[in-house]
């Protein structure tokens, strides 16, 4: 369906490079996991994609192609049509963003009429009923208020709103973080169903590596604003090449292997105004060698669709990005 490729850079006094040279492809019905610690640029990346950056944010390089149309070259007016109609987003904590004094049904109807000219009230009503049914909310609950909904039901309502205009892509930013594990499973199952039924492509932003393993087809691991590693889900979990990916996995408890030793990753992700001169992960990296502290690694292509930004990856890997861009 699409080839998406984006580079970003954020301006803030001396420009802080919040996202640098990130490339990925999202196909129809594909679920991409975007993972990394807090402050690794995940949210900036998706805000750039939606062109919803705060005033001081600038996209300085790259292209975002959606069905061959470059989103970055669209006028603000054209982009506004793209949002919700083509790409919808469910923000982190959005389930607390419902208007408390309006019924859920009304709020979904508003999402519909704002972007689509649906002539009659009946058409709108029918569509609201259809959306509620799609996300598993009984029709009798459309006239209830958000406080009458549980957390899981509110998240379903938010998903219904995101789907209002039939988007091709849904970006979900930590959609299950505040939910209990059983409710989380219900929401994940719903998202899998939507992917199968509607052919929806999903970008799943999370720090929960368990959820990513269960849900995603491909994974983009971000660190300090750059792609640490990008590959299909099996490669990321069973043959990771970037030390950051490996360390993240070692730090994540695996319920199927109790009593296994858990590791922590000492230190913190770099601040954007104080980036290390070499690889951004080098100060925390257990395998770092001298060159890592002085020279930024290029993104190496290891296999078809497998990228890793590390000096230590298989020397046969050919640097494909970054360096060429530098010319």
């Amino acid at each position, binding site marked *: 369906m699409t080839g998406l490729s984006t580079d970003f850079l954020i301006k803030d006094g001396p420009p802080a490079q919040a996202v640098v040279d990130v490339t990925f492809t999202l196909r129809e019905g594909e679920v991409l996991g975007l993972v990394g610690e807090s402050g690794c640029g995940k949210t900036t990346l998706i805000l750039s994609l939606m062109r919803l950056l705060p005033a001081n944010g600038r996209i300085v390089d790259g292209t975002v192609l959606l069905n061959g149309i470059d989103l970055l070259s669209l006028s603000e007016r054209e982009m506004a049509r793209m949002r919700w109609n083509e790409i919808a987003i469910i923000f982190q904590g959005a389930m607390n963003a419902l208007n408390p004094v309006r019924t859920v049904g009304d709020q979904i109807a508003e999402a519909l009429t704002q972007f689509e000219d649906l002539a009659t009230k009946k058409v709108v009503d029918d569509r609201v009923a259809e959306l509620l049914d799609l996300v598993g909310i009984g029709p009798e609950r459309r006239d209830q208020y958000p406080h009458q909904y549980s957390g899981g039901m509110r998240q379903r309502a938010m998903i219904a709103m995101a789907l209002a205009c039939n988007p091709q892509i849904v970006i979900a930013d930590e959609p299950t973080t505040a939910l209990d594990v059983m409710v989380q499973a219900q929401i994940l199952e719903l998202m899998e169903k939507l992917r199968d039924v509607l052919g929806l492509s999903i970008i799943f932003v999370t720090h929960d590596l368990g959820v990513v393993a269960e849900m995603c087809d491909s994974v983009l691991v971000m660190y300090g604003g750059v792609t640490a590693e990008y590959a299909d889900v099996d490669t990321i*979990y*069973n043959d990771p090449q970037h030390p950051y990916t490996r360390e993240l996995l070692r730090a994540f408890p695996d*319920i199927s292997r109790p009593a296994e030793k858990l590791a922590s990753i000492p230190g913190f992700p770099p601040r954007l105004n104080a980036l290390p001169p070499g690889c951004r992960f080098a100060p925390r990296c257990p395998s770092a060698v001298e060159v890592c502290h002085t020279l930024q690694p290029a993104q190496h292509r290891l296999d078809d669709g497998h990228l890793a930004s590390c000096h230590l990856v298989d020397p046969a890997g050919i640097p494909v990005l970054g360096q060429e861009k530098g010319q």
Partner: protein
Amino acid sequence: MEEARRPVIEVNDLRKYFPVSPTSLLDRQEKHVHAVDGVNLVVGAGEVLALVGESGCGKSTLALTLMGLEPMTTGSVKIAGDEIGTMKGKDMRALRQHIQMIFQDPYESLNPVMKIGDIVAEPLKVHGLAKDKGEQRERVFRALEDSGLKPADNFAGRYPHQLSGGQRQRVAIAAALVLEPKVLLADEPVSMLDVSIRAEILNLLLALRQARGISILLITHDLGTVGYVADRIAVMYLGRIVETGSTLQILKNPQHPYTRALLSVSPVPNPRQRRERIILQGETPNPIDLPGGCRFHPRCPIARPECSQIDPALEMVPAGHEVACLVVSGQVD
């Protein structure tokens, strides 16, 4: 082996009901939220017991009751052999030295206008435990260093906002340790922290158990974390413990249908281990009007007709492994 441990916490048929204000004048019958409804629990010296359950199952109320912060409705709680139900004032305060709590959110549990050294010294002052400034300082510094904030000198003069989330949680642990308690109640101690530093805090708790023989009651909904730190697990549903056993018994061979469902939906970080999820529909029922019989039967995938009639007690399956389920214990076919 675990039986040999001297019990530090003994909970017997503990109940905690909260009255609900009537919604109408006609509603004469007084109703209650059955937050904790007949819990039996033993935590041995130096043992890490994980209390696992979803929001609203009563695990946090249970913790507050153990701390004496919520008076119990009926039942018995003994901390280091002393019954807390009958204690008042001074005795209660003395008892609280033995049991200290760490909360979930280190961004909210520390007073932002107090220095780290003062935060950790506060419990000593409240309990009047330090003879003089010198002893106070020494005990505060020891607690900070035992919690991994070394050198303590560097941290005592700082304010909470100058520390990272992991460091703040260490301060909360130091403030609990300074009284040299026998038990730590840790309510979701790592759920607000980034994955990369969770292991540090969990390792710290394990090290404290090792070095000081402290018992830890870990309250969490994250079964992944539990496998790593706990000796035993108790699974709670709607105010009751429905299954308890060693960590391996519960994680490798769960018996209660609720535990099985919970485990099946706990994500495993390996795409080669995607499993069939047992998804329970709906949500935990309201603890005001509890279902009759087994309280899990309306959501249970293996419920039999009898389950709506008989309230099952915990039955031993093999040694050390107890389950409250009529089907599993063979009382119905």
